[in-house]
């Protein structure tokens, strides 16, 4: 309101171009800007920085000098200890296994669904999409107990397979939604031409998949990272040590080793590392997809 009133009253004047700053001053301003921004970023990332520096101290050094001192003689001993206590190799393997299988299975389901809805343009396609959106946003605690009960009954409770099955279908909902609209824009002439050449529906599916590889690989990366980061359902279904994933192991470790400051910090760092590595590998794909996506939150 106020702003627009002011706007009306100010006469429109052509702004005089400022004289260009001397080069040296311009340069100094740039340096100040970078320094300030860097300081701000470091302040922002201080929690991560603290975790990193305290993972290389032993407990005695931590309690003597506090969390803010750099380690006197950095050592990897704490890491080794935490790695063994948590059986980190097992947890890493579980996380990687579950996430990759979900990424593949989830992709297969989404492609098949989207093929029927987007290319086949089946009659109830829009209606089916509504249900997949439902699967996308539903809070997991509204499924947790019946699934828990059901998995115990079929003896899949506390198995990686249970989590893989549940997440494959949960994740595929997003892909179905995304790919249906991608496939809808697939040129109809191409499909007609393929049909004339005698392709059946499976051959056409091959063609559609081959021509949409970028979208499909984006989805796989998403499914992988999302599943890797999941917490609620794995917490319920993966109770034994041999089946747990990294986020669960790290969280439960902190609850158990309450008095061990540097062990907690080393454990958290171990939990962060794989994700940061994925981030550097997939950075461009991920930030692009963030915008395309949405509802998953």
């Amino acid at each position: 309101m106020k702003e627009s009133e002011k706007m009306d009253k100010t006469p429109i004047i052509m702004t005089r171009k400022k004289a260009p700053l001397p080069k040296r001053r311009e340069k100094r301003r740039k340096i100040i800007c970078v320094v300030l921004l860097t300081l701000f970023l470091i302040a922002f990332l201080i929690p991560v920085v603290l975790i990193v520096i305290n993972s290389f101290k032993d407990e005695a050094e931590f309690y003597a000098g506090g969390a803010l001192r750099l380690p006197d003689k950095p050592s990897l001993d704490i890491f080794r200890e935490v790695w063994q206590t948590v059986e980190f190799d097992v947890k890493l393997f579980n996380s990687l296994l579950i996430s990759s299988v979900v990424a593949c299975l989830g992709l297969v389901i989404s492609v098949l669904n989207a093929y029927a809805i987007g290319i086949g343009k089946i009659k109830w396609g829009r209606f089916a999409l509504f249900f997949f959106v439902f699967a996308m946003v539903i809070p997991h605690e509204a499924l947790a107990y019946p699934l828990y009960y059901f998995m115990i009954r079929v003896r899949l409770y506390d198995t990686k397979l249970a989590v893989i099955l549940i997440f494959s279908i949960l994740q595929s909902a997003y892909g179905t939604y995304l790919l249906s609209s991608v496939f809808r824009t697939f040129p109809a002439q191409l499909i007609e031409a393929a049909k004339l050449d005698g392709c059946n529906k499976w051959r056409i599916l091959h063609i559609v998949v081959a021509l949409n590889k970028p979208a499909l690989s984006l989805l796989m990366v998403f499914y992988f990272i999302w599943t890797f980061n999941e917490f609620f359902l794995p917490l319920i279904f993966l109770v034994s040590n041999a089946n747990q994933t990294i986020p669960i192991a790290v969280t439960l470790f902190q609850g158990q080793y309450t008095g061990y400051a540097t062990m907690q910090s080393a454990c958290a760092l171990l939990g962060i590392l794989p994700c940061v590595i994925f981030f550097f590998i997939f950075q461009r794909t991920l930030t692009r997809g963030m915008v395309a996506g949405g509802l998953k939150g």
Partner: protein
Amino acid sequence: MSTRIDKGYYWFLLPGVVLFLIFIMLPFIMNFYLSFTRWSGVGTPVYIGLSNYLRAAGDFNFWLSLRNNIVIIIVLTTIPTVISLFIAVFLFQYVAVKLGRTTANIFKAGFYLPQVIPVVIIGVIWKWIFQPNWGALNDILQRMQLGNLTQNWLGDPQYALGAVLTVMVWFQIGYPLVIFMSALQRIDPQMYESARVDGAKGMRLFYYITLPLISPEFYVVILTTIIYSLKIFGPIFALTRGGPGNATIVASYFSYKNFFEFSNVGYGATMSTILSLIIMVIAVLYIRIQKAREYEGE
């Protein structure tokens, strides 16, 4: 072009639909039914009509959970959005122009870093920082001669929710930042040029050009953040487990406790059913807006 519908395509939907019915629809319906029963998890659920819902209406902790979710929604839709908007505009219009896009991208990645980490591990990190005896926060305060400000941040009902919110704001900033940065890229630079010719500058360009043009992204950010805030579980589990007392309890944790700690399965199902309904309404709203946006774009 033949647009005749080919029945053969239905087969491709079959696996997806069957799995969807088994793993999502059926559990959801069962959960819905359980909300009308009393059940400890063993034996047969006893149908008790609307009793759970009536009990919820008068249950202080039920409302406290929803209230906390609402507080989280209010804080997470406003503070990170505003902060990241300013960072985005600064990075895009100053840093990228004067110092190059690579520099801008490095800073963007820096602010985005927390988003990459599983949110529950974010909780673990901050719990470590908030630790009352040797945590870094109290340590810093003491070194700055502000020893009287040290608190048991997560253990004191007065500060616990504030501490959780701080963590969530910190975590959240990268999300709108990335979305706004790409929205800014979409704006035609000629818009600014012609506005400048008309005498607009600085804040005015921001108000009358930048803000209206990135408003679709605003909707996306706000609605997805609302859904996210309603589902929040991991950070609460890692930081406070809903405590001290029930100071930081949220809807999902309320259900979790009733399912697995109190063996009040029916009551837990009541909360999760109500939460699902709220989220579905918001999701429908979101899709409406998305659709409207697509038509505008065409």
